[in-house]
Structures are given as structure tokens and as C-alpha cells.
């Protein structure tokens, strides 16, 4: 199929469905008011098409559901754990595995074990929970992503790349001893789902090897990143995605994984390590935070679903259809002249709210406003990734003012159809047409941490 067709048509058919809730505009206006113009606070049944996140929202395959029935719920030594361990060794190549209830469980462990107070953790752009765990362990995150990542209009194909000069400068300034590891994400979510190139990761490996610094890989969307390398990087087009995935992993020393993305499960994650000592320490600590090291806070069935999901995630037809569907939506919006982050990301389309609503100042929360408007128009739920998500500066107490004000339209894997994509595109276009009538928001309730989850707003 891959050779003959241009279409990204799904390499699967539908086996089980879940009804959607249709709402009237009147109902949506009421729901949005009650949710304080924060899409996180909407009830799932008030939502028609849910693009809030691609995390944990995938449709599992019939094989995964069959695996769910094979769950071995023994507290210790569950068969499913050994299947999971084997899948991770086979597809990712890491030696030692500790399951965790989800990605942040793995982040918690690795940050506690490797970071000492005063340490510096360079990374290719921050991610909310990753950065928080680093800070809680006493570390400071330093951004070393290429400048293009902060420019929504740059067509640079690998906006997830590390700026090697920035990295070397950080190492020289603080010294290698202060840097427990470099945190590398494939793909970079906050940059708009942008991949990094294989050549760039190789160069990062060389540089870190020179200074004896580890690379810890945030590999939640590594298959999507590998597929982009296959599509865009010179000399990589003949390789399989699975092969590239394994090479990317081989350039790093360990990984945290939220299996709720690439690996097509509703819950689960893991910490993978090549160093025995770090693994042993993690194994001793996981039992305090997550669960015994052969279940890590997961039901046996979820480890089985993860093992199967990992093998499906690197299947060529699957990954082509996955990214193909996101590109389909992205291209529709781009053709309609909607301002957005370019190139299109692999797990979603990121609208440029600053350009979309140029008359709404950053302090009137343009991305939050746009997310609310999209819901009101057709019941599509999206997520703000702008000043609300960026939070406040620890020192000054003022807002952090990010360059990008984005609204993320994340596409769950294998869930929605082309017709759903069409509805989304139509709705965005409709909102764009009447953009001049849209006014900003005022924050009425602000939680102290991770405010984007629970803040409330009202219309100006």
C-alpha cells in the first residue's frame, strides 16, 4: 500500500465505537462560562471533538484489547512485565526497564536520582512537567534549542534541533560536573511537535561524550520523530522508521517515556536505563513512589497493552497514516491562510494566536481566548500553550512572556476520521472570518502552580 497510494488512508478498520455528544451553541456558551473559559475544566461529555491532548487518548487495537484480557495481575513478577521489558529491549534497545504509572512518574525518578541542588539541566525546550521535576530536585533548566524553534514562521525542517553552540557555552560556563544530563526530547512538543535530525543528535552525542555528560531521552513521540527523519533528512529515506527509532535511542544513555503517546496506550510509561547503578537506585526508589519494580503502579494488562503498542507504533503503515492525518488537517488550515506554526507538527496543528488575534494583547490571553472561541463555535476542545501555560517568573513574580502564543489542536491516534478533520477545519475557518469581533479575557482565579490546568477567566 505504501508504494501505490498517495492517500494516507488508515491501515485499519473500526472495530469498536464510542458515541459523541452533540451540543447546541446555547449549551456550549453555558458550559464555557461554567468552565471559566478554561478548556481543561470542561466535562468530556460537553465536548464534540476532543483535541485537548494526544496523551492517553488513542484507540487501542484489537490485539491490544486481547492483551488486556491476558493481564497477569500478580504483585511481583507478572508475565506482562517481562513481555514489556522484551519489547523495549527489542524496539528501543535500552537494557534495563522500570515501568511507571505514566511519564511523569519516570521523570520524578530520574530527576531525584541524578539531579543535585544547584545542577543545570540543558534541554531542547522545556516541557511543563519535565521542568517542574527538574526544579523540584533542585536543578535549573536551560534552553538550548535552535533559535528557529521560537519563530512560528520559520520553515526550518528540524526545529527540534539542539543549538550546539548554546550547549557548549552552557557546559563551559557551569562545567560538566554541574550537568547531570542533557535532556533531549523527540519530538519537541512546546515548539509545535517539531522533530530533531539524526545528524543533530549524533553531534550532541559527540559533544556530550567529550565532556562525559549523559543524555536522557524524553522519547514519548520518538516514532513520529523518526518518521520525519525518514521523510526529510538526507540519506535516511530508504531506512525503516523502526531502524531510525533504534538508532536515535542508541545515541542516548537512558529514557523517560510516556507510553500514552506513541505507544498507543491509555495509561503507562517507563524509565529505561543502560547504566546498572542508576537502574538499581531507580528500582529501589520506584517502590516508594509508583509500585514494585515489576508493575510500577500499572495493572498487568496495561503493561501487556504497552508491549503490543510499542510494536505497532513503529509499523510503517501506521506511522504514515498517523502523521498523514495530522498533515491533512494542517494543510487544509494552511491553504485557508490560517496563521499557524510551520512546518506542521507530527502530533498536532499549533495555531499562532498572536497572528490570529493581533488586536488581543498578550495580557488579554490571545491563545486562551482562541481556544474558548473554538469550543464555542463547534464544540472542538483545544489547549492553550502561551502566557497562561508559561506561568510566572520565580524571582520577579511577573508573568513569563513567551514568544509564542499557541493553541494546540492535538490529534488523538486512530480515533477521529477524515470527516472529523473537515469539521475542525471548517470551524477554525469560521472563527478566523469573524476574528475581529473576538475580545480577550481577564483572569479571575489563578492557582499558584501549573495555573493553566485550573485558572478561570471571564470575557472582557
Amino acid at each position: 500500500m505504501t508504494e501505490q497510494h498517495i492517500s494516507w488512508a488508515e491501515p485499519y478498520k473500526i472495530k469498536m465505537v464510542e458515541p459523541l455528544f452533540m451540543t447546541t451553541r446555547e449549551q456550549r456558551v453555558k458550559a464555557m462560562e461554567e468552565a471559566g473559559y478554561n478548556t481543561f475544566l470542561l466535562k468530556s461529555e460537553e465536548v464534540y471533538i476532543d483535541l485537548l491532548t494526544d496523551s492517553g487518548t488513542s484507540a487501542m487495537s484489537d490485539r491490544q484489547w486481547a492483551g488486556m484480557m491476558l493481564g497477569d495481575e500478580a504483585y511481583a513478577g507478572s508475565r506482562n512485565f517481562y513481555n514489556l521489558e522484551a519489547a523495549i529491549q527489542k524496539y528501543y534497545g535500552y537494557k534495563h526497564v522500570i515501568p511507571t504509572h505514566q511519564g511523569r512518574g519516570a521523570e520524578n525518578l530520574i530527576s531525584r536520582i541524578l539531579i543535585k541542588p544547584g545542577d543545570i539541566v540543558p534541554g531542547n525546550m522545556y516541557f511543563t512537567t519535565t521542568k517542574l521535576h527538574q526544579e523540584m530536585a533542585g536543578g535549573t533548566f536551560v534552553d538550548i534549542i535552535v533559535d528557529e524553534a521560537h519563530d512560528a514562521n520559520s520553515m526550518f525542517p528540524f526545529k527540534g534541533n539542539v543549538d550546539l553552540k548554546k550547549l557548549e557555552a552552557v557546559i563551559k560556563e557551569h562545567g560538566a560536573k554541574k550537568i547531570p544530563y542533557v535532556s533531549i526530547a523527540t519530538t519537541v512538543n512546546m515548539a509545535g511537535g517539531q522533530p530533531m535530525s539524526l545528524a543533530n543528535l549524533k553531534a550532541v552525542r559527540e559533544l556530550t561524550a567529550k565532556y562525559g555528560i549523559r543524555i536522557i531521552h524524553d522519547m514519548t513521540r520518538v516514532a513520529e520523530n523518526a518518521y520525519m527523519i525518514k521523510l526529510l533528512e538526507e540519506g535516511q529515506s530508504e531506512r525503516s522508521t523502526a531502524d531510525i527509532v533504534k538508532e536515535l535511542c542508541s545515541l542516548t544513555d537512558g529514557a523517560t517515556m510516556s507510553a500514552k503517546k506513541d505507544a498507543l496506550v491509555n495509561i503507562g510509561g517507563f524509565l529505561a536505563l543502560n547504566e546498572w547503578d542508576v537502574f538499581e537506585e531507580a528500582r529501589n526508589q520506584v517502590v516508594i513512589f509508583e509500585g514494585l519494580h515489576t508493575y510500577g503502579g500499572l495493572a498487568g494488562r496495561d503493561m501487556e497493552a504497552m508491549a503490543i503498542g510499542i510494536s505497532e507504533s513503529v509499523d510503517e503503515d501506521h506511522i504514515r497514516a498517523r502523521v498523514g492525518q495530522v498533515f491533512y488537517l494542517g494543510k487544509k488550515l494552511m491553504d485557508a491562510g490560517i496563521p499557524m506554526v510551520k512546518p506542521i507538527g507530527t502530533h498536532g496543528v499549533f495555531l499562532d494566536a498572536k497572528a490570529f488575534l493581533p488586536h488581543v494583547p498578550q495580557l488579554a490571553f490571545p491563545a486562551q481566548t482562541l481556544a474558548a472561541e473554538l469550543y464555542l463555535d463547534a464544540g472542538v476542545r483545544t489547549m492553550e500553550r502561551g502566557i497562561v501555560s508559561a506561568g510566572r517568573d520565580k524571582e520577579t513574580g511577573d508573568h513569563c512572556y513567551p514568544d509564542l502564543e499557541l493553541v494546540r489542536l492535538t490529534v488523538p491516534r486512530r480515533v477521529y476520521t477524515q470527516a472529523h478533520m473537515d469539521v475542525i477545519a471548517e470551524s477554525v475557518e469560521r472563527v478566523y472570518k469573524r476574528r475581529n469581533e473576538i475580545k480577550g479575557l481577564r483572569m479571575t482565579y489563578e492557582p499558584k502552580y501549573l495555573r493553566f490546568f485550573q485558572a478561570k477567566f471571564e470575557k472582557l
Partner: protein
Amino acid sequence: MRHRTIIEPFRIKSVEPIGLSTEVERVELLKDAHYNPFLLRSKDVIIDLMTDSGTSAMSAHQWAGIMEGDEAYAGSRSWLRMENEVQDLTGMQHVLPTHQGRAAERIIYGHLGGPGKIFISNTHFDTTRANIEFSGATAIDIPIPEGQDTALQHPFKGNMDVGELDRLLKEHKGHVGAVILTVTNNSGGGQPVSMANAEGVAAICKRHGVILMLDCCRIAENSWFVKHREEGMEGLTYREIAQRMFALADGAVMSAKKDAFANIGGFLSFRNEALAEACTNLLIITEGFTTYGGLAGRDMEAIAIGLEEVFDPHYLNYRIRSTTFLGEQLHKLGVPLMLPIGGHAVYIDAKKLYPHIPPAQYPGQALVSELFRLGGIRSVEIGSVMFGTYAEDGSLKPSRMELVRLAIPRRVYTQSHIEYVAETFEGIMAEREQVKGMRIVKEPKFLRHFTAHFDTLP
């Protein structure tokens, strides 16, 4: 007619094969697992009585709920269903889902704990103690003295010593993180706590202005004992008894892997909004957003259904009666037990079974090994391996009791499985004098029983 036999109020809908092994194979398997049952592979175990946590058979209704799970990141209807169920049961408005009980403990005891703080319980369970000590606080156990004597018959051996509680709260005024009442009292032999005791504890906590947390993971089983053993309680339903006990507490922590029949999941609930809010931040960072807390939607669905099912009187009768059945079989063989038999497990007094093995040679761990060698039965030591500490001179400060727990997974094993276990004990009794003690070869700093390596002594 009235039947003597209490049958299971269900039939079997889905089965899971058991792998059988020989004694010769198991001797090797034990060696490979460093005599630690936590390091055995599940496929090598015949009857797995390691824990009743997360090992239940779910009902067809729960499996249907699994299929209906709403996996939305925010505002999932499965969450709303679970929240509603927990609010109704506990009478507490603020509910935080967590991936399992220890996460709930880490969040609340991390918040209330810290260096210099004291926590007081009828008996802290292993993960509870670990979470408290990890925060730098101290955990103090004050079970009633009767709870320490395994052979003594007492209806509520899980009770807390209220006189001692009052004294400790005076002594440590201003430094008490919380009082934790665990129902039933797991480490103390799965023994119940009476309503009168809970009321006494609550009154003292109130007088001292101290937070009372209910660790309620087996509250339905506890309610069975209260209804049948405590005067004035017989007219209430099991659920009403549970609700009355919840009403005494400021908050509750639950591992839903026990009485809610779920394979994964837990929650925190509070009456006080400020306390709930203080926990929310850590919940989001370490577990997941407030409407899923690190659980799949389907698991929240299963928990909601399980919390309703567990209060079915026919189920609770069967549950308590079938645990007692195993106890009675062992008692007939002369196996020294914790009496009366608890709700979820039978506890064997290893100190009495192997009087020739001193606590520093871990008689409980020796019995655990013997049970696996002779019958492929996996059990767990609740004694000096789990709770022992070292004195400054490096000698072992043993636990109060050397118990081995045979925890019965809910709705999983049949009467013939239980008879097989009893039969294995015939061998245990026949060979009891030849059994040797054990030593620890390697251990981590916290919760050593999970990963420690052992060896047999010559």
C-alpha cells in the same frame, strides 16, 4: 432448609491457567530469586497468596465498565462517576484520584509530614511507614496490648490504644502530622477496629485539634466485623457502618486495589477544602491532572462499580467465611496462628512455629521459602524483614511479631485451592524442626523486603 455451606455468590466467567511446577524445580527457582518471593516470576507460582492488593477478579459488570472507560484527559465521565461514588460513600466533598494507595499516602503525608513531625497509627503499613519516614517524620504504632498476643481471642484486635494516643498527643503537641486509623489493621493481622474505638480516637483527635485520616482500603471487611461483633451495630447495613466511620474522620486514603476489587487505583478524600487544595499541586505534578490522577478512565469506572459491589451482604459473608475456612483448616493442623482470623488473610506466627530460629535469623522468611518449596505457594513475611531496623551497633532491632501472611485475593481461588494450601501445611508441620534460619545478603535503604537478597543459614 438452612445450609451449612456458604457458597460463592457468583460463578466463574473467565479463567486464567495456573502453571504447575515440581519441588525440584522450585528449589532452583527459590535460589534464583535469592529466597525473596517478590523476585519470583508469577508464572512459577501455583497459588499466589502474596497479596490481596490488585489481584481481585473483577465482575462482568466491572469489565463492562472497563469497556466504557472515557479516556478524556480532562472532565472524563468515568471520573465524574467515581467522584460521585466516593463522595456518597465517604461523605467527603473533595476527592483526588491517584494511581494507587501509596501515591495518595505520599501526597498527603508528604504535605503533613517533614522532619520533626510525628504520625500515630494503630499500625502503619509498610508503604505508609516508608512514605512518612521518607519525608523525615517519625511513625509511631500504638495498637492495643491485646493485639500483640497472637493466641488471645479479642473481637477488635485492630483497635488503637486510646490512652496512649491521648498521652502522645499531649507529649508531642504541635508536632503531630496526623493520626491514621487503618481499618482493618493489616500489619496487625487483618484485625478489625470497632466503631467505639474509632469514636474514641476521633474524640481525642478533635480535642487536640489533630487531623484524623482513615486508611479505608478494607473498610467493607471491617464493617462486617463491626456488624457481627459490636453491640448496637447489628441493625445497620455494612455500607451504613462504613459511612458512620467515615463521618468520624477528616480525610480518607484508599488503595482501591483491595475492597474496590480494582486491579489498579486509589484516592484521597477530604472534608476540608484547604487540605484538598494543598494536595492538588503535588497530585498534578506527580500523578496526573485532577480528573484522572494517573489512572486510565476505564479503571475509574471499575473502581466506582467495585465500591458498590463490595457492600453486598452475600459477598461479604462469603469473603469473611472463606478466609476463616483456611484459618480453621490450619488451626486443626496445629499451625500457630493470629487469632481470631482476620478479614483478608490468615497470619501465621512464625516465632511459635519455628521456636528454634531467633528473630535475627528471620523465621518468617524461612516459612515463606518453605511454603514455596513444598507447595509453590507465595506468601509474604510481615516481621523483622519488613519492619526490623538496625541498632547503632549493627544488631537487629526485631519487629514485635514474626508473622507470615497468606492474603486471599478476592473472588479468585476456590475451596479446592484452599484445601491444597492446607495440605501443604501438613508438610510444613512435619518438617518444622529441620528448617534453618536465613540471613540478608543485600538490602536497599527503604522498603528492603521488596528487593533484598537472602541466603539460607547452614
